[in-house]
């Protein structure tokens, strides 16, 4: 009897940026439903790793398997098709567009289409987005509200709702609490903890070790393009991680 394959399995991943060895042979297994905190100093390679997983950058070597199958993640779209969604610190929402339109951006439900271009089903967009937002415990009065009118924390809530709506298996959160107030930060961390109860695998990238300790079960530390520490949060301490990175 064998264990179920990890949802994401990375072997020997390499990435160079004009002479800089940003990823130097990363090996990492992520089990389904785990919440992982990815930490490291600036330039440690954590952003690069995330960019590779979310299809923004192509790796120069190594292998990625999703649920045991080797995959090539060539674009953000192909990452999304594999069920990997990313919430960026700049939150990838268009300020001058409504919540409903942002939720479905690039994946609009169409009434009919010719060659991929067609008329949007705006009713479905409004109804489903209202539901998706309520599902992550975010309370907005109307899906027609412009993103520009929301607070930073509410915006991250919308981004997380979007990822959840599209049934992401793996949700990557890239510094989701940067530039947020203390209250907003705790709200976003609340969203993240809520995901654990819904069986979503989460990878939280953060500078703030305290956030990682309160929201994640496992912590992976990177330095100089390598994984230098990989433990359960209950088996390590902030001091040990700081020493490692």
């Amino acid at each position, binding site marked *: 009897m064998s264990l179920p394959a990890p949802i994401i399995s990375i072997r020997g991943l390499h990435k160079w940026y004009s002479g800089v060895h940003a990823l130097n042979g990363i090996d990492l297994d992520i089990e389904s439903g785990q919440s992982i905190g990815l930490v490291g100093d600036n330039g440690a390679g954590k952003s690069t790793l995330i960019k590779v997983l*979310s299809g*923004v950058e192509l790796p120069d070597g190594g292998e990625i398997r999703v649920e045991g199958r080797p995959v090539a993640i060539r*674009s*953000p*779209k192909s990452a*999304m098709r594999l069920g990997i969604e*990313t919430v*960026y610190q*700049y*939150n*990838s*929402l*268009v*300020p*001058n*567009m409504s919540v409903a*339109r942002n939720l479905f*951006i*690039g*994946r*609009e439900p*169409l009434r009919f*289409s010719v060659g991929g*271009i*067609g*008329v*949007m089903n*705006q009713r479905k967009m409004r109804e489903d987005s209202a539901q998706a937002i309520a599902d992550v415990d975010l309370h*907005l*009065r*109307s899906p027609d*509200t*412009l993103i*520009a*009118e*929301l607070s930073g924390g*509410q915006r991250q809530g919308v981004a997380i709702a979007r990822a959840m709506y599209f049934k992401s298996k793996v949700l990557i959160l890239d510094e989701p609490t940067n530039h947020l107030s203390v209250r907003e930060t705790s709200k976003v961390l609340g969203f993240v903890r809520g995901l654990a109860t819904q069986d979503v695998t989460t990878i939280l990238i953060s500078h703030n070790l305290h956030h990682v300790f309160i929201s994640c079960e496992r912590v992976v530390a990177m330095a100089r393009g390598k994984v230098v520490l990989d433990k359960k949060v209950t088996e390590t301490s902030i001091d040990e991680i700081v020493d490692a990175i």
Partner: protein
Amino acid sequence: MKRALKIYLEKPELAGVLLLIVLMAFFEVRSHGVFLSLQNIRGVLGLLPEVGAVTIGFAMLMICGEFDLSVGSVFAIMPMSIALMLIAGIPFWPAFAVGIAMCAVIGFLNALITLRFDIPSFITTLGMLFVVRSLTIVMSGGFPPLLATDKVPMALFTGFVGGGLFRASFIWFVALVVLASAIMSITNFGNWIRATGGFIEAARSMGIPVVRVKFSCFMICSILAGLAGTVQVFRLQSPFPNLGESLELQAIAGSVIGGVALTGGVGTVFGAVIGALLIRVIDNGLVLSRIDANWFKFAIGALTVFAVVGNSWLRRTARRIKVEV
């Protein structure tokens, strides 16, 4: 109530409509009733499709986050090449198709150079403005060639329809307004255009083909400019090589007056049409009110600045009106 006010203030094109009504009333009084006479309305509506079509293409490109200064030159080169092809004995429809294809190629080049070399479209299309104008003049030899009017199906372009109030071009223009508005507001392509201009990083990370979207908008803008120029030449029946000079400035002014933001992502087709109509009304109204026509540019300039200042004030005010989100 507060909510309704907020929604109103967030739609700059509604402010344009209001201004339009005020101006029309003003000119109607100043011109002692000539402004809203059938004869004069016909004149204004005859010109509107030409400037209006250019402004629509320009506005869509601006919403997408790019810019096209070459529209005035493209406006001239399509009718010029059609006129020359007709003289060379090519039948009308093939010549017309080649003209459109040429505009599409110019738009394609604008996009290719801008995106491939990652330079501002302001520069690419400023260059294209000179290059295309020069080509037009060289092609014509500096003199307007004769337009073989017997080969052109005039009724389809500038013939009067509907009891003589509209030209055929106006019907085409209304269809264009409806189509372009629909594309921008209810199709996913319109969503992509707005997202690309509104926040390109977000659009790209959500898998929108931003490069293809920009290519499309550049090409739509050039094709509409060429078609508009062709209609104007068919109306005037003479392809002047300097046709459409400084038209790009009117297209910018019209778009901006209608609430399209220079920074991209904001604006509507309807707003751009209102902007273009405002310019036509001012142009025409000044003449009818016996005000020295040299004040036209003064009025357009002042209105453009006023519109941008006013729109950003409206937007700030709207944002300050707190309704629960």
